[in-house]
């Protein structure tokens, strides 16, 4: 190999056709761009985020009722129609997106915040501490998820503690996050377990690197790809679960709009005023499908074996 490189450098012409150095990220982006589903998903997702960000530009108020205009069918003035209190449904749907996406991002943050440290400790130190953490994870996964979230939400609804005020986004995010971290913890642990015994880690240890340095600089970056993919898919699950809980009346409570509680509200008048039910569901569907396609594209793009194949190694 070394002799080869020398010959390349010595002959100037061949030097020109050597590709410029490519980073892992630029290669991943190249692969991501070639995944049609992921690109369409990304575009739809950007559009959904824009509707949420610019929701306050709407001339209507998402919460204040306007009884004169109740149950208006979709029209130019109210493209999604109005609900039983005369509120513009497009405005509420876009505000609902703000709530659902915020909760989703909070859940992902909680998941990573618990999952990465737990997985790291279990995978790096192993032994009895790993055993205990794994049993906790098993016990967490043994709980029937939806049922436990309902119980937790029903209990927290009564409580008015400082962080978990009733009906705050944070409370719902905690309810969802309590059960979602084990996946990430297991993932990080698996990465650590396979790499812990590798020569380069032993070399780093021999050079006197601290545990923290080895964990942060040598091991954790290897989990970067799977963690990103898992977080993306986790965002989708979280949004779906939040909508489901809100639909059941155990998530975000009215008058704050969320896609789930708008559907709950629609159920009562489903037959007479079907437009109440249609749009929030389409928004959930579009968000989840784009997130899933983005996750699929990222999985392909960040797969180290595929990237290596690309470089030709």
């Amino acid at each position: 190999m070394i002799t080869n490189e020398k010959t390349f450098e010595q002959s100037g012409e061949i030097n020109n056709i050597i590709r410029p150095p490519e980073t892992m990220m630029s290669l991943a982006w190249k692969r991501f761009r070639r995944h049609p589903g992921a690109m369409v998903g990304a575009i739809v997702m950007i559009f959904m985020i824009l509707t949420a960000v610019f929701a306050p530009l709407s001339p209507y108020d998402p919460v204040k009722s306007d009884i004169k205009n109740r149950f208006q069918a979709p029209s130019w003035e109210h493209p999604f129609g109005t609900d039983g209190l005369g509120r513009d449904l497009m405005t509420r749907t876009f505000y609902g997106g703000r709530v659902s996406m915020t909760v989703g991002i909070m859940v992902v943050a909680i998941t990573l915040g618990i999952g990465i440290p737990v997985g790291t400790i279990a995978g790096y130190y192993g032994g009895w501490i790993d055993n205990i953490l794994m049993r906790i994870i098993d016990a967490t996964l043994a709980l029937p998820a939806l049922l436990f979230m309902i119980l937790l939400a029903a209990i927290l609804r009564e409580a008015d503690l400082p962080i978990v005020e009733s009906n705050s986004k944070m409370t719902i995010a905690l309810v969802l996050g309590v059960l979602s971290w084990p996946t990430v913890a297991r993932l990080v642990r698996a990465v650590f377990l396979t790499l812990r015994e590798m020569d380069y880690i032993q070399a780093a240890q021999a050079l006197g690197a601290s545990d923290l340095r080895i964990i942060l600089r040598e091991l954790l970056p290897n989990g970067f790809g799977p963690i990103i993919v898992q977080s993306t898919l986790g965002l989708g699950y979280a949004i779906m679960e939040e909508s489901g809980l809100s639909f059941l009346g155990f998530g975000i409570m009215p008058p704050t709009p969320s896609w789930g509680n708008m559907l709950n509200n629609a159920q009562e008048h489903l037959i007479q005023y079907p437009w109440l039910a249609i749009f929030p569901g389409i928004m959930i569907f579009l968000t989840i499908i784009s997130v899933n396609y983005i996750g699929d594209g990222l999985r392909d793009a960040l797969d180290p074996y595929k990237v290596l194949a690309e470089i030709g190694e």
Partner: protein
Amino acid sequence: MGTYIVRRLLQAIPMLLIVSIVLFGLVNLAPGGPLSQFSRSRRMTAERAESLKRQFGLDKPVPVQYVVWLVGNDWMKVDTTGDGILDSHGTRKGILRGDFGFSYKTREPVLDEIGERLPNTLYLLGFMMLFTGLIAIPIGIISAVKQYSAFDITATTLSFMGQAIPDFWFGLILILVFYATLNNPFTGEALLPSGGMYTLGAEFSIWDRIKHLILPVTMGLVGWVAWYSRYLRSSMLEVINADYIRTARAKGQNERKVLYKHAFKNALIPVVTLFALDFPYMFTGYIYAELIFSWPGMGRLYYDAATSRNYPVLLGVLIIGAGIVIISNLLADIAYAYLDPRVRYE
């Protein structure tokens, strides 16, 4: 194998204990605990509340209450009249002996309530699982065998859509289409009923039962078929590229036999894990469908208990549910080890 099963069973016991402690603690330490529904009543005086607490044993510290809940109180003296004197032996047997207490709402034993609802849930979920298998298995196989064909691309796209459709919304749309919009051309009635297990007051008829099943089953099928077909496709793809399949072909085995005898059987093994994850729904029910289609199953029971804070029912369903999750994971692992001998040697 035997020792493996025993070891796993022994591991399950501490896990169930942890789960039961967490759930019991959560319910009892939380504000708005078991007695809060009484304290809302205006007629409730402080003395009456104290007396009730003593009668229910709620004046004792939570760990003692937990032990009573677990093993019962028929071995100790309790205060049945609420006057502060321990007068006679308790009557509770504890959940270990199958006494999950009484529902606050109906005053019936929790187990009786569950027994009443469970058949309805098994009936609904049983058909859902049956049809999931009947639809997802062929789709998964064909998709994998004809990878990147028009069929595969359509199936994969539909599966992405199926995973993204919120089922609770899909249920509402089904009602809109098949109940509110479409009519039976002969009778002019709605094409399909919007809820219930059968027409109330009508005589038993199989057709009536089927009509009531179609929408709730369809609502759940979409997501399940999407998941299972995609999962089976990828596991089938993995198997098809395995060495022993190439060997079978090289030896001149005919393609049908290669695919269905060698490949399919092995591709099903990973699906066991997915099935084990979904199996507990047979007990806990399908809350969304049971609510939307007013189906009197376990999901409804739990939902109603949660809205009225009927803690004995909530705890009972959760604990039994957790037990079923653990057992079904254990069975999946055993099945896995049985089907795939490589696992046994690890």
